[in-house]
């Protein structure tokens, strides 16, 4: 069942001779419960695609339909509300608010949405437990390791029970052990909770945890690989790293 659909997405930055076409007519569908990894060399348009799928940017041309709703047709405030209710984000640099504790960071999207503080805090603690950092709930981000910060960021993304979880290089700033932990959590979310995830990564081993890998080059889809078979996994690992 299709959760997310991108139809003929174009994104152009700048004007005239300085114009850069970051995406050149990309179309794809993501099913509910699918774990999609997007790979590609720098400048291939993978982050731009993620931003358009998450509604933080709007396409120059084309449509993004999440649960049948066209994100580009909404105004800024409608998109903001839609994001905080249906889409969770995980960033490479964690992007936790440094002056709020782990618990406050996780509760933030709920409180912004008007959920009573007590309920928001209870759900935040629950999510922190899910990613294994509930013991750090009262700590500020600066007192936590990178792995712990990223797990708090995952908890913040999950606390709204999003239809779609978008992750932009979630292991990019982590060592291999912490990176592995984070990918394992994401994988478990897909398997146990049926969470839909779209993840941008450079790392083939991280991408190998996904169900499906799309490779981008120069704003176009170069390949679309289903990882359900061992052969396709082998193909992923043998292809040169962009």
């Amino acid at each position, binding site marked *: 069942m299709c959760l997310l659909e991108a139809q003929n997405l174009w994104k152009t930055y700048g004007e005239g001779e300085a114009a850069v076409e970051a995406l050149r007519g990309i179309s794809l569908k993501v099913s509910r419960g699918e774990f999609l990894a997007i790979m590609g060399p720098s400048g291939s348009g993978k982050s731009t695609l993620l931003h358009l799928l998450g509604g933080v940017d709007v396409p120059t041309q084309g449509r993004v339909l999440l649960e049948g709703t066209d994100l580009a047709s909404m105004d800024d405030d409608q998109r903001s509300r839609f994001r*905080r209710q249906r889409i969770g984000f995980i*960033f490479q*640099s964690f992007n936790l*608010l*440094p*002056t709020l504790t782990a618990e406050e960071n996780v509760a*933030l999207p709920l409180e*912004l949405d008007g959920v009573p503080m007590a309920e928001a805090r209870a759900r935040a603690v629950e999510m922190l437990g899910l990613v294994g950092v509930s013991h750090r709930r009262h700590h500020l981000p600066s007192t936590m390791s990178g792995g712990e910060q990223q797990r708090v960021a995952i908890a913040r993304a999950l606390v709204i029970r999003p239809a779609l979880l978008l992750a*932009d290089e979630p292991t990019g700033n982590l060592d291999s052990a912490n990176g592995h932990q984070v990918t394992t959590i994401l994988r478990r979310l897909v398997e146990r909770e049926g969470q839909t995830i779209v993840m941008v990564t450079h790392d083939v081993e991280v991408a190998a945890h996904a169900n499906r890998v799309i490779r981008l080059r120069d704003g176009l889809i170069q390949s679309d690989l289903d990882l359900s078979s061992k052969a396709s996994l082998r193909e992923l690992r043998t292809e040169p790293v962009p």
Partner: protein
Amino acid sequence: MILARLVWNEVRQRPGRAVLTLLSIVIGVSAVLSVSLAIDNAHRAYEDMYKTMAGRADLEVAAVDGSSFPSSVLAEVERVPGVAVAVPAWQSLTTLLHEGAQVRVIVMGIDPARDAEIRDADLATGQYLADEPAALLDTGLARALGIGPGQEVRIRVKARPYVRSVPVVGLLAPRGAAGFSQAGTVFLPLPVAQRWFNLRDRINTISLRVAQGADVEAVQSAVASRLPEGLTVRPPAARSRVPRSALEMAEHGLNFGSALVVILGVFIILNTFLMNLSERRRQLAILRAIGATRGQLARMVLGEALAMGLLGTALGSVLGPFGAEFILGAIAQAQGAEPPPLRFSAGPFVLAALVGPLVSLAAAYVPMRIAARIPPLEGIRPVVSVDRADVSPWIIWTSLALCLTGGLVLVGCIVGWFPAVWSIPSGIVFTVAWVPVFPGLLRPVAPRLAAALFPLLGTEGRLGCVQLLRRSARAGLTGGVLFIAVSTGIGLGTTIINNVEDVRTWYRRTMVGDFFLRAMFANPATGQTVPMPESLGPEIARIPGITNVDTIRFLGGQVGDTSVAVVIREFTDPTNLPVDLAQGSPDEVRRRLFQGEAVLGTVLANRLGLKLGDEFTLQTSEGPRQLRMAGTAIEYTLGGSVVYLERRSAAKILPVEGVDAFLITAAPERREEVGRQLEALAKAQGLMLHNASELSALLEGVMTGVVHSLWGVLALGCVIAAFGVANTLTMNVLEQTREIALLRVVAMTRRQVRKMILSQAIILGLMALLAGTVAGVVTAWFIKQSMVPLLGYAVEFVIHPWVLAGSVVIGLGLVIATALVPAERAARLNLLIALQYE
């Protein structure tokens, strides 16, 4: 709620910046509150003084020049239908002698049988007056002097012996609060006062109460129709409007200063909020990315501003009264009076309560709009983009248009197209509108200045200049604030110094003499005093060594709608005319004065539109007198509303009795001896003797109070501007953290880093200070010219190099001092952390 917590956490993380923002609001609010509270108290002091004297009267009959009139008028007034009560009184200023001190008091001769019907006072202790000589004192005066019923007081009177002792029989507590020290009142039975002050059967006020249901205005008209020429009937409060005019100049100056402080505060708060925003830009973008709407972010910024505004208002409201005490003290000193106790009224506090939050919200408006427009993408990108580097061209053009409009209105005020009072708001607009223009000037000027200073600042100066230009909007706004502080400081400073010098010149030219003998200080607002007998003149002249004795007598009068002081002098020195002439030659004017013509203060002549040789009508208690204008004179008594007459000519048309001051000149070699003899005379007669230098020192003291309070308000402006520089440089250092670290890694020493940051301060400071100096001189010239329609002459315009050089040196020193902390912060960056800084 979560956003409020976020803001609170931010404030806790950066207490220094929060304190700077708060201080800007606190200073602005306390300046507004101090000035408005002080002015409000000064006005109320005057009103209370007159209310205390007027009591429950609806109307009051008095002579147009404040002189006395026959008691027979009372019977005429009592017969007017609608008059329920008519109470006669005589009031004047005199001196109370107590334990070696001389206290200025109001002496009131009252009708013991009828006065209680009209006076708004209670007998606090003792008994009421009868017909025999006895006195009632107001409780404030009695408390101040430590006098009670049963004791005696000595007061100066006009009949021999000139000082009388009188028993105090009771204390009167006025229901209205007492005002300046003039409100210290001694009540005597009217017949006793008439005897002691040589009044025969004369009074100088009749207080009227109108019958219940009668129309006050109709009764006023009916009374007016029965009054002889020279008398008028009016509501008692109307009298307080006369001395109010004496406060106007100080009021304008203080209001200008406090408006300036508030405007500077707005810019600093704006700058601080913009800096906070730059620093939190990524966080705000993250909030947007996880779903915060534009409205939520806008409310967050406005909420922070409102909280700051409310807290700043609360603190400013605590500090304001202290400032008000200081200003009120200065005003009282200038009025030659004791400051009244500070009273609080809602008005100034309501004004302050509005100013604080409104200033804060106004300053947060632009940052709020920027915050709301931050795209969520910025939270996701690895490198944070920067806010607008330049001020939008439409803001620059709008500001230039405002500048032009302000300048044109100023010129209009100078040439008389617009009222002179418009020059203050238009001057503020003209000055403040330059601030947004300043960022536009930074780009072409700063690199040239850096190049010119290359031998001093070197490569660090060039790098510093580049950093300034990266954020030309912020740097320009800071420079603009500094520019305003300096240009206004120099403009007002030059004006104050030139005006003070003008007062000195006036004083030197008019108060010619080695010694001044008088019964008491004259009220500078009304010129009123206690006259001495004329017979004292020949007595003084007989003292060996005295070469000249001149006299001054002040009388009241009216020309058109203007209350005037008639200054009557003998002009006994044939070699010198002691008048600061603006129009007319001294010899010609002297000749005409002796022929019965008059010299008018420039303000009065200008207001009446009179030219030399024109005739005008002086209303006196003896009826209208037609006079010709022989010349105009610079005059500071009663705001320049003065008519000079020669004594013998004046005596033909006015009841000139007594002398308010003797101006005595002695032969230089016998001055000390003359001084001793005059001192003995003064002591024997209970008079006040001053030599020229003492009186000059007194004058300086009077001027110092108001001048200091004006300088104080301006100094606040400079302090606020210095906060702005500190803020900007700290923010620049924060933003340059990564670059500074890179420079340190590749070669730069800590000393060079310090120099680079200090160079930014020097380039920005010099630009603002040099431009501000030129603008300050222009401002001073504009102020001088805009005062011409008001004063009727141009105060001599002198540029004081020490003011200009002092402002630049002090300003630059202040800027460099405020740059030291950010420079040290930059020099001591931890390289490993700084290299990871985004």
